């Protein structure tokens, strides 16, 4: 059967957000600008980045996403995620160990409602006609610098975004437990571009992805979309085998 992750998440979970109620209502986030690039990574980290509940993709991948939300219930914010491409059973997903956000209010709300494991950082996203560039700076250091070069229009239907599995803690049956929270936003696209991906810098340790080494560019896209943050429907127990790990709420 396919390879599975070997990572023990206990070190991560202590710092993960606590989601005490799994009944957060949807958020409508109009006009989000989403820059995403994908890289293949070295196979030495194929299983070490993921917990036992998840299979790595073949080949192993990282998906870097920086999204500017100009409107939200907590005001504008920019969110940066570096996710590991994976499968939960047979379903395509992106595992998020740590992300960054430029707004304390958004950081708190996203953590409490959807289990986003975020830290505060300076996150910028700049759209130009020849390129779209994003940078994440934390503790006075650039931990992600990525660019889509030479954007060309495509249809939003040509894009496919992964649902996230956010590392979090949840309260189940009176106990606090480590869980991956599935977050699968809906997207109504206004425009979309693709281009050549370029990764200027990436500090794997800062994203809790020690050993992840981007080696081969795959794709880059930029979209403007109305995003609906979903109601939580699924949890994954990270320590269980893939076919036993998913809990439907």
């Amino acid at each position, binding site marked *: *059967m*396919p390879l599975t992750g070997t990572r023990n998440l206990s070190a991560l979970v202590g710092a993960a957000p606590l989601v005490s109620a799994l009944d957060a209502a949807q958020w409508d986030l109009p006009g989000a600008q989403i820059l995403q690039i994908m890289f293949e990574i070295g196979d030495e980290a194929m299983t070490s980045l993921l917990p036992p509940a998840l*299979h790595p993709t*073949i*080949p192993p*991948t990282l998906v870097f996403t920086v999204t500017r939300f100009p409107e939200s219930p907590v005001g504008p914010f920019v969110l940066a995620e570096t996710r590991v491409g994976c499968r939960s*059973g*047979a379903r395509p997903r992106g595992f998020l160990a740590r992300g960054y956000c430029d707004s304390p209010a958004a950081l708190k709300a996203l953590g409490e409602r959807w289990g986003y494991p975020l830290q505060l950082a300076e996150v910028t996203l700049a759209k130009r006609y020849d390129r779209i560039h994003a940078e994440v700076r934390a503790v006075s250091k650039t931990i992600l610098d990525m660019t889509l070069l030479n954007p060309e229009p*495509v249809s939003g239907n*040509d894009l496919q975004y992964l649902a996230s599995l956010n590392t979090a803690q949840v309260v189940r049956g009176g106990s606090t437990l480590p869980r991956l929270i599935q977050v699968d936003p809906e997207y109504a696209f206004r425009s979309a571009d693709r281009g050549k991906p370029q990764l200027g810098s990436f500090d794997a340790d800062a994203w809790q992805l020690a050993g992840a080494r981007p080696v081969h560019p795959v794709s880059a896209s930029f979209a403007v979309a109305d995003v609906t943050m979903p109601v939580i429907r699924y949890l994954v127990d990270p320590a269980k085998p893939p076919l036993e790990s998913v809990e439907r709420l």
Partner: protein
Amino acid sequence: MKFGLFFEISVPRPWEAETEYKVYQNCLEQVRLADELGFDQVWAVEHHFLEEYSHCSAPEVFLTACAMQTKNIRIGRGIVVCVPQFNNPIKAAEVAATMDIVSGGRLEFGTGRSATWTELGGFGADPDETKKTWDEWTRIIPKMWTQERFRYEGRAFSMPQRAILPKPYQKPHPPMWVAVTSPGTELDAADRGMGSLGLTFGGFAEQEKKIAEYRRRIKYCDPVGSFVNEQVNTVNFLFCHEDNEYGARTGQRLAGTFNYLAEQLLAARQAYPTRSYPNLGLLPALRREATSAPEGQIPEGLAIGNPDRIAEVVRKWEAVGVDRINFLLNAIETVPQEEVLASLRLFAKEVMPKFAAKPEPVAVGGGA
């Protein structure tokens, strides 16, 4: 109705020294038995880098071995990847002609373009280009087979005048097929006068609509080859057992394992934004639809269970317009080899006689 085998050649971990050897030997044994039992054809895929799911990167070699170990069964390249980073159209024509000669005119020639980033990225192929190069190759390969000398100035491929040798044994050339995984490719097959090599495991209703449209469109086709190959070929899982419950349970385990492995791969669509590959991950969705059923029920279109149930399933496929069914027999050896062989024997004894094969061949062998 004609019956065949379809091989992905999936190899379970751990990959020890004998693992791939053993799986290949099991497949060859299945082919030899199928030939003795009167199965009509054996198909093998061309896949690269697809860990566990398919270790069948040199199907021309495997199929030649099949031909050398059998007498009658036809051998199907399912498919030649018509993408220049994977193959070369001259070489593809030459290899196919040689296979046709050494097999005594038993080659079926399938064409396609790959659907995973795992493969396309591995070869450095541009996903935007694959449909275009497939289209160009399917027009020129039959001319390479039938013209004494061939020259071509094309978009992605050109060559000066040369004699491409040898020529196929079947005249004018082997039947040509298109692998149909993306929605609409069955119409591409019809428009070009090619057989539809369906790989989607769709249920009856879904397939009936597609087949009806294929039959309607092919009447007005502009054939790429020297003749129209109006045939609908489909893939199914086979596990036949006297005990219907055991047969269905084992067959569902086989189908579930296969689908699980297939969905670990990185589809082109999931990695690279392009209109060249359809949205929504349709192939996994179709596979799920076709192989899942409410608790306690058997998926309607799968050839699993006892002979009576399988015969009923085959009759329904025949009724919706399918000409041939090729069976996947195993996935990472989840079914013991002896049970696979017993299943084949039982199917041949109890089910095949109920579906007499049409006697006339599609293309006639005969050398010069």
